[in-house]
């Protein structure tokens, strides 16, 4: 069943008219070169900017949904981890809910192992710790779709694995994810991958098919080397050294 449906969303000069369907429970990766339009797509879907086109979640038009309803439909985690104010981590998570629910907050604190950090001001935590708090905030209202912009950067290896476990559990309950990331080694964990470049979705495949596509290497300017690692792809007939 389709959860997120976007029809012809576009941002002037950054995102060509794009249509996307994400079924419920799907983990979708969003990859692409720097400046290719990953963040623009997420911002357009989250209605952060007044993009043209229409975005619906479970058939409800996001632009028409009131605040309390909207946070049950969609959550957005921007790439920036900055918080200006000395709000306790616990209270940051609380801001993700439209009414106080101490049980839900305690559950998220346990899930993200924040017990010792819960009462510390969030602007004094390390960037990785703050990423856990802000992701917990995004999950708090159990939205149908989560748009996460590079949630895994700044995390240590344990937390990268732990985040995937959490994403998979949450997705199993029917919520879906659209996650922008750079580390191609993590692609096999996703159900589907979108490649976005020049403000346009160039490929929409299962992760295994994505990386073997010819156009994939061209866009990223890399290729799979003999030992299975990625290496830089240089224009033919030019043996340049750095």
């Amino acid at each position, binding site marked *: 069943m389709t959860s997120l449906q976007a029809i012809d969303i576009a941002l002037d000069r950054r995102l060509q008219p794009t249509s996307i369907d994400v079924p419920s429970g799907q983990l979708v990766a969003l990859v692409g070169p720097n400046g290719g339009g990953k963040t623009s797509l997420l911002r357009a879907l*989250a209605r*952060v900017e007044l993009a043209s086109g229409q975005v619906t979640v479970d058939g409800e038009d996001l632009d028409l949904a*009131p605040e309390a309803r909207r946070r049950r439909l969609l959550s*957005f*985690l921007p790439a920036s981890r900055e*918080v200006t104010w000395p709000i*306790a981590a616990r*209270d940051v998570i609380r801001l993700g809910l439209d009414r106080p629910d101490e049980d839900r907050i305690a559950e998220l*604190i346990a899930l993200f192992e924040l*017990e010792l950090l819960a009462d510390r001001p969030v602007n004094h935590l390390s960037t990785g710790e703050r990423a856990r708090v802000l992701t917990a905030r995004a999950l708090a209202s159990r939205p149908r779709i989560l748009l996460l912009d590079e949630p895994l950067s700044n995390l240590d290896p344990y937390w990268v694995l732990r985040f995937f476990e959490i994403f998979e559990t949450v997705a199993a309950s029917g919520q879906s994810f659209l996650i922008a990331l750079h580390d191609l080694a993590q692609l096999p964990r996703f159900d589907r991958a979108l490649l976005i470049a020049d403000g346009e979705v160039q490929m929409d495949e299962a992760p295994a098919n994505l990386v073997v596509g010819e156009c994939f290497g061209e866009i990223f300017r890399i290729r799979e080397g003999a030992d299975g690692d990625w290496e830089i792809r240089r224009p033919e007939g030019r043996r340049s050294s750095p």
Partner: protein
Amino acid sequence: MDMHGAFDALRNRAFERQTLRVLLALAMLLCIAAHLLLPIAPLREAHEIDPELANLLLVQLRLPRTLLVIGYGAALGVSGAALQATFANPLASPDISGASSGAALGAVIGGYWLGISQPLALAACGAAGALGTLGLLVGLAGRKADTATLLLAGLAISLAAGAATSLALSLAPSPFAFYDAFDWLMGSFTDRSLSQAAAALVPASFATALLLRRARALDLIGLGEDVAASLGLRPRRLSLEVIALSAVAVGACVSVAGAIGFVGLVAPLFARRISGGHPGKAMIPAAMIGAVLLTLADLAVRAVPLDRPIPVGVITALFGTPLFIWMVVTMRRRLTA
């Protein structure tokens, strides 16, 4: 920490904040009473002559002043907290942003050049001046300016508005303008009538009430404009609203009682200790702290045994400047750490 301990800590912290709130409310009541009754000697003398006279003194002379002081302090606290939330910067405030200087300029031009004497019309001039400087600040520094840009732009605007005010006074048709204006430009509550108090307080309460309604939205803006926008808020519209309402609140008060610095900067800082760091929820405690601070400053002014009045703004600056320097130093340390 086990679950039980966590809940205990939570309860303790909530209790601590509740205690602070109650103490603050008590301090405010105490300040109001003290401001109405002190100095008590004239009241007692009047009472001995005729109880009705004491009553008259209290209602006609003391009450407008007390109301004005409380209202102005509260307006500074609320608009300071709202501006800080909007600019995502703990140094944004009516004085640092140049809004107070702009309001003074507006009131001076209205009063000495356009010949306006009706208090409410003067309040509108003050609000227009504050709006002008805040608009200029957004134009110069942008809404998401870093601290240095915000401070420099605010400083430049304040200096320009100050100079323009002096110029407007020097060239004013009335030769007494300069002397006359000195009385209120730096903040004065002496001999304000009930209608003057109303001209400041009616627009200010209206604007403040509208600002308080946006507390939740301002808390969410604290998570970043993108998150707020994804929740259906319109950050741009919200910040224009906050700027316009703060300009009305501060402008109206400045036109009656002069530009008073530092209260709008400092009150939100303390208020966020009560609101658990939330910038929007800090508005109500900021109103109370602002009212307390300004009442204390005015009490200090009245307690000085001089026949010439000391401007209230001098007192707030005397105590506010060291605090401001401390804030700048701790911010710099955090930035370089």
